[in-house]
């Protein structure tokens, strides 16, 4: 069944999009990530213009994050104060990102920049996760107890000034790295159309030493607002948010996420992480190949002040 997307201005198959949303939703439920980093490249592979894929990806992320936050609120695994500070940084980063986005679009380098960012970030995160999870899998197989970093361990981040207390996270830390992390994620959100959970979660755990149980809820909480802000700014400055496309992805996504969460409970943590790492690397490799393969058309047209 075909449907015409009003903003992307192309006809697509409804079931492909629903299935795409459901598959990504399933994975995001399973791994506890928003799934924006999968949706945007998939949309680009499906010939949706990158500018629209990014803005619509940000919109879709809101739905899955909101759904996730509701269950974390119920369980009380959400640090509103930490989320709020992250958010303040996020708004600044996101605003900067939108300007860079519009600037690159004028230069004609937006598509390249999005692909490069994806390849670098997904490649790095996927690679690190794969190494870490394979080591953990080996360790469990050889019977050795997994080595965990002591939570009391302090690094350079904890020597920065302007400390603030975050009660729910049992944390007393400088606001500088928290704001910086929020800003970085906000920037990526507006340029890549991702929530940034796949960077936020490890950063909160390893850099700020936030207890794992509040990390996902807090990350999702801040992602809702950052991606809502990103959606709003993309909608007003670039008119690249396609609600029809976003809705199809969300509808598939929220259904898939709930089943994914259940399936995720049956797999062990390191197995899950190894699988996710492979998936992330596969997307990165696919995007990298496209950068090097001779394109079918060397020339491209773009209107001025138009898509």
């Amino acid at each position, binding site marked *: 069944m075909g449907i015409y997307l009003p903003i992307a201005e192309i006809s697509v198959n409804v079931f492909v999009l629903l299935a795409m949303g459901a598959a990504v939703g399933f994975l995001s439920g399973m791994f506890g990530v928003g799934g924006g980093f999968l949706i945007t490249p998939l949309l680009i592979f499906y010939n949706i213009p990158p500018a629209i894929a990014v803005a619509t990806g940000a919109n879709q992320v809101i739905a899955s994050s909101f759904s996730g936050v509701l269950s974390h609120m119920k369980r009380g695994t959400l640090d509103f104060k930490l989320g709020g500070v992250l958010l303040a940084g996020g708004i600044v980063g996101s605003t900067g990102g939108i300007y860079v986005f519009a600037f690159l679009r004028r230069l004609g380098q937006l598509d390249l920049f999005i692909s490069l960012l994806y390849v670098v970030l997904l490649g790095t995160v996927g690679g690190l996760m794969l190494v870490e999870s394979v080591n953990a899998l080996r360790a469990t197989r050889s019977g050795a107890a997994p080595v965990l970093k002591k939570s009391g361990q302090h690094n350079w981040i904890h020597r920065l000034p302007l400390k603030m207390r975050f009660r729910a996270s049992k944390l007393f830390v400088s606001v500088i790295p928290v704001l910086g992390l929020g800003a970085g994620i906000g920037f990526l959100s507006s340029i890549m159309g991702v929530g940034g959970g796949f960077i936020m979660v490890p950063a909160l755990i390893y850099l700020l030493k936030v207890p794992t149980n509040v990390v996902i809820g807090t990350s999702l909480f801040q992602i809702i607002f950052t991606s809502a802000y990103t959606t709003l700014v993309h909608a007003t400055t670039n008119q690249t948010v396609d*609600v*029809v496309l976003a809705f199809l992805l969300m509808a598939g996504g929220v259904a898939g996420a709930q089943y994914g969460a259940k399936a995720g409970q049956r797999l062990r943590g390191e197995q899950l992480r190894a699988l996710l790492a492979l998936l992330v690397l596969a997307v990165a490799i696919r995007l990298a190949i496209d950068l090097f393969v001779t394109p079918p058309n060397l020339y491209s047209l773009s209107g001025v002040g138009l898509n």
Partner: protein
Amino acid sequence: MPAPKAIATVILLSLLAAAVPAKAQTPLPTEGIQIGLSTDNVSITAGFSGADLTIFGSLENPDPLVARQGRYDVIVVLEGPPRTVVVRRKDRVLGVWVNLDSATFENVPMSYSVATTRPLQDITEPNSYKQLSLGASNLYMQPADVGDSPATIEEFTAALRERKSATGLFSENVGGVQFLSQNLFRATVRLAPNVPVGTHKARAFLFKSGLFIKESSAQLEIRKSGFEQSIFRVAHDYSFLYGVFAISLAMITGWLGRLIFRKD
């Protein structure tokens, strides 16, 4: 006696002067061309997959002899609204394909469909097409930056035409103009599936034995209709409200999704 001779000359001259226009008028007044559109606006729906647009027209005062010999030719063009277009070329940088060079052209019609009685090269010579800026391959593309070298401009102009033709926005329909009688003709121009919305201009050119005689034009508004078009308009005219709506829709979907599919 020079006076009568002078008078005679004057009379002769004035007779001649009177005779010249009279002689030109005797065979036939000059030919003209008119086109008519049955409607001044066309609405296309979301599922639009391209269509043919028929334009009727007539020759005024055709010479029956020339018409019988088939020496009248008509070219009908439907020109989309003009836009500034940037053409970019990808080149390899460290193995990666990057948009490097570009050229900007002004007032490029977004679409350009041509219908002709015969192949363009049989109607008149290339030079007159250039002068008239007529035909997808002769259309003058006005570079925004006059400082570019002619070779660059030529290369990007060719690329622009090639891309427009490849996407069906520039098209030629040879034999698309047919004479129904000595002075009535019908032209069929193609509307591509991605035909731009806006004010289009239909133009008809009349040629007689390879010579350009006259042009006539009419305007046509192409609009998209339906649900998808309303969304598009709202997204552009009320972009802030549209953004708020997109966010609310996402939140409601997230909340409903949890209610319906919750597994915990």
